[in-house]
């Protein structure tokens, strides 16, 4: 991780006040789920990201209430994926990448010195655009692979396997062939297998980076149903280019945009507001398809 932006980070920390999604909902007089009953949730404060000298993302402060789904929308290159990759420290995998700001999970900064990055990624799972099961592993092995890699001992693996596949909406389709290879499943099933794999380590937060962009409408619908069910027990952030998907699955929507400079968050509001009466004309133009 590059640390040349430490001064900038210090500067950012002084003024940042995260946008609380709950307060946004209150301001719009809209009822949305999202109590703090599941934990203190996830919060980012003044997050910036760079790729070398390229400033990719500027000053994103958001406070995700536990048990909510937040959709991140915006044109390609506006920093949505970069933003979610800063949340579980995937961003730092890229050579020359740097970030500033804070990502707080249950009030603790995931970038604090001495933090076990592997542990963070267990708490903040991720599902990618392209389904990426381990093709030579069986369905069952795929689901339990995270536990094995993290050396976590599960008391009853069969129960855990069934629970994760059930929650990912895949159990009824694969229960009779758990020994089949992950690669033998359809694209939509593979993506749900990846979700089941992410669930096995019991994350508090699930990041989804365009999880349905390679899937047919039927598989997309099943993943969306899975997202809605999972949101009862975790915080979900989904990057999507599909406006209807954002409208269907999320409680809140944040619109990101780059005007040639670093990507910024233009507007965040309850999803019903973003798709019925957005406040910023740039959001309006984007959701109505007038640019992007």
């Amino acid at each position: 991780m590059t640390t040349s932006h430490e001064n900038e980070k210090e500067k950012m920390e002084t003024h940042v006040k995260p946008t609380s999604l709950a307060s946004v909902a209150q301001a719009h007089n809209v009822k949305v789920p999202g109590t703090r009953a599941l934990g203190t949730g996830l919060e980012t404060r003044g997050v910036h990201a760079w790729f070398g000298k390229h400033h990719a993302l500027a000053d994103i402060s958001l406070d995700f209430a536990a048990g909510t789904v937040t959709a991140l929308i915006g044109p390609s290159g506006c920093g949505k994926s970069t933003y979610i990759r800063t949340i579980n420290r995937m961003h730092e995998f890229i050579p020359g990448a740097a970030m500033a700001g804070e990502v707080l999970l249950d009030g603790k900064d995931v970038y604090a010195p001495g933090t076990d990055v592997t542990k963070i990624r267990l708490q903040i799972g991720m599902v990618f655009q392209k389904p990426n099961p381990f093709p030579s592993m069986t369905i069952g092995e795929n689901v339990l692979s995270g536990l094995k890699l993290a050396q976590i001992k599960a008391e009853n693996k069969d129960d855990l396997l069934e629970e994760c596949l059930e929650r990912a909406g895949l159990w009824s389709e694969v229960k009779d062939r758990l020994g089949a290879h992950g690669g033998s499943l359809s694209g939509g099933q593979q993506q749900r297998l990846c979700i089941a794999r992410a669930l096995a380590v019991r994350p508090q937060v699930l990041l989804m980076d365009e999880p349905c962009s390679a899937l047919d409408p039927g598989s997309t619908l099943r993943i969306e149903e899975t997202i809605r069910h999972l949101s009862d027990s975790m915080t979900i952030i989904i990057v999507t280019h599909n406006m209807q998907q954002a409208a269907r699955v999320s409680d809140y929507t944040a619109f990101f945009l780059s005007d040639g400079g670093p990507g910024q968050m233009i507007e965040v509001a309850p999803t019903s507001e973003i798709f019925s009466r957005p406040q910023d004309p740039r959001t309006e133009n984007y959701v109505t398809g007038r640019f992007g």
Partner: protein
Amino acid sequence: MALIRSVFQDELDSVSQSLVDLTSMVSASMEQATTAILNSDLNLAQEVIAADEKIDDFQHEIDARIIDIIARQQPVASDLRALVTALRMSSDLERMGDLSHHVAKIARLRHPDPAVPTELIQTITSMGSAAVKITNKTGIVITTRDTDMALEVERDDDEIDNLHRQLIGVLIEPTWKHGIETAIDLTLLGRYYERYADHAVSISRRVYFLVTGKFAS
């Protein structure tokens, strides 16, 4: 992409223009119905009655286009509001056409006798011209999306409400000498004009919502 969105914009503009055209048809219909009832003009009454079918057909055509646009373009935000309100405005306009048709039917029913006694000609004339005026203003509101003018339409409606009250006041006077049948006709006529104007107000309120995303209080 740009081309598809520009076609979409053209479709939205075309729906808006069709609503303005329907407003003009409805306004002309009420103007002619009022002339027919004041002059006991059977031919004109017949024309208004026949024209109602054209208004209904045009409304169905507009609604079909709106449903097609919603199905193909999945509009959101102001585009969605524009189309949903257009559906409801077309329904208001169709009802306004029906009310003109009802006025013309009273003229036809009483022909060759006059439906309106001399002492109430001025009141019905005023109601008719106020109804046409409010409809024409509504057409301008649909075109310009002027929210101030949209709220003005609501105030203009007060004039018709006052005339309606005046009319009912005359009908319930003990000195009324034109019989029950004429009183019923005039009660209905007054109600038709009053409801007609209410639909114009409703359309203007919908334009206010379309523009602001908020309901007019």
